[in-house]
């Protein structure tokens, strides 16, 4: 059919087919391409906070807006099966032995931020200070956003890379990254690293956390869970 005077090559069809071919090619090589793009574009300061896929963090929160807190009233509690329950203010946390570690941050949705420097207090140090019952099987975490929860087994909690972080890139943790205190479970996918942390409870059983209720793996090792094959974070 040749309606009215519209003659000439079917350019529209060629464009659509061409875009479909390009899209398929992009899907095929996108994984490798995204690393190249993230490394090149992500190097430009500020870009990664505006553009997705530029190698920066993507900010996830399960509640609307930002959870509220005040530096004077904030307390991190350690309770449950402990000999000595703790309720630590930010200055008190700062007086405990500080641990620094630089780790990749791998999200289960695919993005990875390289070499993030964190510092804070080792979770095992806190558990020792609270005289946690080593025969208890699990440690639960809760956020003052009122919704998000996570948990670890007692042996996972005693790993030397489980950090109760207060600083990131040498600065206090920014609000969107979970200020003032978050868990950093670098060897596991990002959803384990609960933000806006306010409660640590030693308990008898592991309770699946917020995303784990939706089917995410409870033992969330990077590269060995959730059907993913990312390089492990060491």
């Amino acid at each position, binding site marked *: 059919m040749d309606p009215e005077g519209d003659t*000439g090559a079917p350019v529209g069809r060629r464009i*659509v087919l061409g875009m479909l071919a390009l899209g398929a090619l992009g899907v095929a090589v996108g994984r490798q391409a995204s690393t190249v793009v993230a490394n090149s574009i992500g190097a430009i300061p500020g870009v990664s906070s505006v553009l*997705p*896929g530029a190698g920066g963090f993507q900010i996830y929160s399960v509640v609307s807006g930002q959870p509220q807190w005040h530096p004077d009233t904030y307390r991190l509690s350690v309770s449950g099966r402990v000999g000595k329950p703790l309720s630590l203010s930010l200055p008190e946390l700062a007086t405990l032995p500080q641990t620094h570690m630089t780790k990749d941050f791998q999200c289960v949705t695919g993005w990875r931020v390289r070499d993030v420097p964190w510092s804070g207090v080792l979770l095992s140090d806190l558990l020792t200070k609270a005289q946690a019952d080593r025969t208890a099987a699990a440690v639960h975490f809760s956020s003052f956003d009122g919704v998000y929860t996570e948990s670890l087994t007692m042996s996972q909690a005693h790993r030397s890379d489980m950090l109760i972080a207060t600083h990131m890139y040498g600065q206090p943790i920014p609000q969107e990254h979970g200020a003032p205190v978050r868990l950093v479970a670098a060897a596991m996918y990002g959803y384990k690293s609960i933000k806006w942390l306010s409660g640590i409870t030693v308990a008898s059983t592991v309770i699946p956390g917020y995303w784990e209720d939706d089917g995410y793996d409870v033992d969330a090792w990077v590269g060995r869970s959730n*059907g993913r094959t990312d390089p492990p974070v060491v």
Partner: protein
Amino acid sequence: MPGSAGPMGERIPPLSRPDASTSGQIKRFTADQRWTHRAVAFLVIVLIITAICLYVPMVSAAVGQRQLFRQLHILAGFALPVPILVSLLFAPSRRDYSRLNRMSSTDWRWLRGPNRPAIPAEKFNGGQKLYSAVSLGWILVMFATGLMLAYNTFFADQWRAGASFVHDWLALAVVVLVAGHMYKAWEDPEARRGLRTGWVSHAWAQRHHATWAQRHQHDLSPNQSDPQMRQTSDAKNADTE
């Protein structure tokens, strides 16, 4: 606006169309086409807004509610092809898709310029033809990659990461494309009126789509026709009386 009354101000009853409010007007889009456009525009805007809430780090930090926006985004994504598929049931849409598909040498000349206003366009100019093709292209690619992301458990990590790469970066191009489209529409109120009411003035059509306007001389009341067009126009109108 010239186009609703005669040059002298007096109104001569139109010959071929009794509705005086549309004299001097050309039908550009039928109701089904206007509703197709409205539905697609609404869904694309919902998709862009929910995408911004999900993926622009600063915005997603402020609004939260990822699950809600994710559901809305997926819902709108699934809905997007529906009005386009439904429009295929209507002959005027199919006719226009066929028009949009073919690029003539005049269309290429129009695209390259210079002096665009002097190059007569059909119902759609070369730019509109390319825009529509690119739009269908991105809708299909975004739909396919979006499907892979929404049902990510069925796809190997390699494919999922690839789909995410295409979906994320193509999304940026789509925002630029849609912004350009809205800017062009904002510049031309009568083009917008064409999509809102279905009618454009003959004068506007003459300016922007000269070849198409001339083909539709017979739709007009005689007082709206250019003098040199009068004869053919009157002859055609005589047939319809």
